[in-house]
């Protein structure tokens, strides 16, 4: 069953068409990422889906209660975290779930005002606010932007926990590592259009079965890109042997999602 269905979504600002008729079908219980470089239109798309922004044409259907993690400037500077939690709970006529607040460490920052919180604390607070009322679909816009490694890992764990509870997570990101680590499916948005929608593995497949051979010798190090690993490796070892060099390290990988993403967005730009 689809939690979110978007068909032919068009949005423009004046003469600038930001979304050129995008289609998205997000399945219940999955972590779905909207991927794109800055200015690709992912925040606009997400805000249209969330109902925060008007769009020109198309249809958006949401099947379930939504929770939206807002950006780090969407609360008054002097509000305290628990006051915000109580306010959102009142607005949603919901009971405060202390377990979630404890898990996100909201009570530890009780005495601080919003402007005194660190980026990580703000992100956790916004996630806690998005979860008030027990939403089925949670929207996260660049959830870990500006977080340190520890904060990032902690938030990833929270997101995985939400998925294990059957929630649908829709996130916008330009962080490939995050998307690779978390998401079931991704949609790549470039120039206002979806150029790919599928699993991270499918993205890798689509951009070609490219291998990277990283070789370090006693004289230099290099990386070679190839589609045919056995022939390239054979020729490479032969060359190194002819030159009388000594291999100190050799590694073969298939490139990161980031490299595939860059290749795909470059291709579209061309």
């Amino acid at each position, binding site marked *: 069953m689809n939690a979110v269905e978007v068909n032919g979504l068009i949005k423009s600002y004046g003469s600038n068409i930001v979304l050129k008729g995008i289609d998205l079908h997000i399945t219940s219980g999955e972590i779905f990422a909207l991927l794109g470089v800055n200015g690709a239109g992912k925040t606009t798309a997400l805000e249209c889906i969330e109902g*925060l922004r008007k769009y020109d044409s198309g249809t958006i259907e949401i099947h379930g209660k939504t929770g*939206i993690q*807002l950006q780090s400037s*969407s609360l008054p500077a002097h*509000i305290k975290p628990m006051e915000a939690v109580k306010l*959102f709970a*009142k*607005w949603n006529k919901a009971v405060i779930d202390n377990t979630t607040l404890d898990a996100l460490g909201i009570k530890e920052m009780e005495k601080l005002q919003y402007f005194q919180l660190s980026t990580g604390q703000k992100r956790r607070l916004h996630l806690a606010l998005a979860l008030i009322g027990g939403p089925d679909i949670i929207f996260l816009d660049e959830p870990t932007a500006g977080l340190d490694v520890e904060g990032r890992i902690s938030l990833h764990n929270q997101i995985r926990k939400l998925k294990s509870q059957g929630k649908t997570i829709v996130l916008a990101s330009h962080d490939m590592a995050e998307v690779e680590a978390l998401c079931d499916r991704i949609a790549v948005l470039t120039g206002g259009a979806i150029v790919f929608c599928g699993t991270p593995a499918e993205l890798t497949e689509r951009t070609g079965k490219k291998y990277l051979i990283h070789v370090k010798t006693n004289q230099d190090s290099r990386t070679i890109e190839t589609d045919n690993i056995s022939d390239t490796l054979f020729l490479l070892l032969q060359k190194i042997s002819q030159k009388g060099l000594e291999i100190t390290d050799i590694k073969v990988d298939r490139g990161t999602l980031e490299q595939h993403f860059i290749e795909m967005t470059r291709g579209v730009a061309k």
Partner: protein
Amino acid sequence: MNAFWYSVILQWKLDIRSKSLLVTCYLVPLAFFLLMGGVFTSVMPQMKETLIQSMIVMGISMGAFIGLPPSLTETYGSDIKKAYQANGVPLYLGLATMFLSAFLHLMMLCIIILVLAPIIFQAVLPANLCLFFVGLAVYTVCSLSIGCVLGLTVKSQSKLTMIAQLIFLPSIILSGIMFPIDLLPNFFQTAGQFFPASWGYQLMQDQGFRLENLWYLLLVFVTAAAGCGILLKKQKSR
């Protein structure tokens, strides 16, 4: 407690924490009251008759034109309004809570002036306190509605300060609260009539609560309320 009243009380607390509102609604008006109260009553003893009204008009004008708009700009000119939209809360809630909170703060300021003025400066209390408070409420609501239009229209805090001063300063100088309006040239007397402060000052004086002093304030309020409605609708349609 329901969501609306929780929002109002929370806003009231946030306003106390926000130094700008504390300064414009309490510190500056009270400092001005203590200083000018001393000067006025010694230079012109007859000012004791109208000291309370003039200091209250000054305090309310400052709180409404300079104190309230920055909070509104902070909310409606930024992502804070998305918090309302994301939770299915109507956009006017923020405006209503800030309006009510500022109203309560300004009423507290007026009560402080009303209590202190007779004690410190032997100022004369209004003869009919009930009518005085009705007039006070009308002027406060009218001034706050202008503050709301300012806060919803101007997006930059620096521009806001400048525009707010352009309304506040003539309100104080041309309304007759600092010196009798008859001393001003005709042009300035007429110009002063465009500012609600002149009407509010008349309304709060003894025997001043009459329709001829009331209609302009009501007109300004209705116009400003309609303006706020249009501005909020514009925000919603983006």
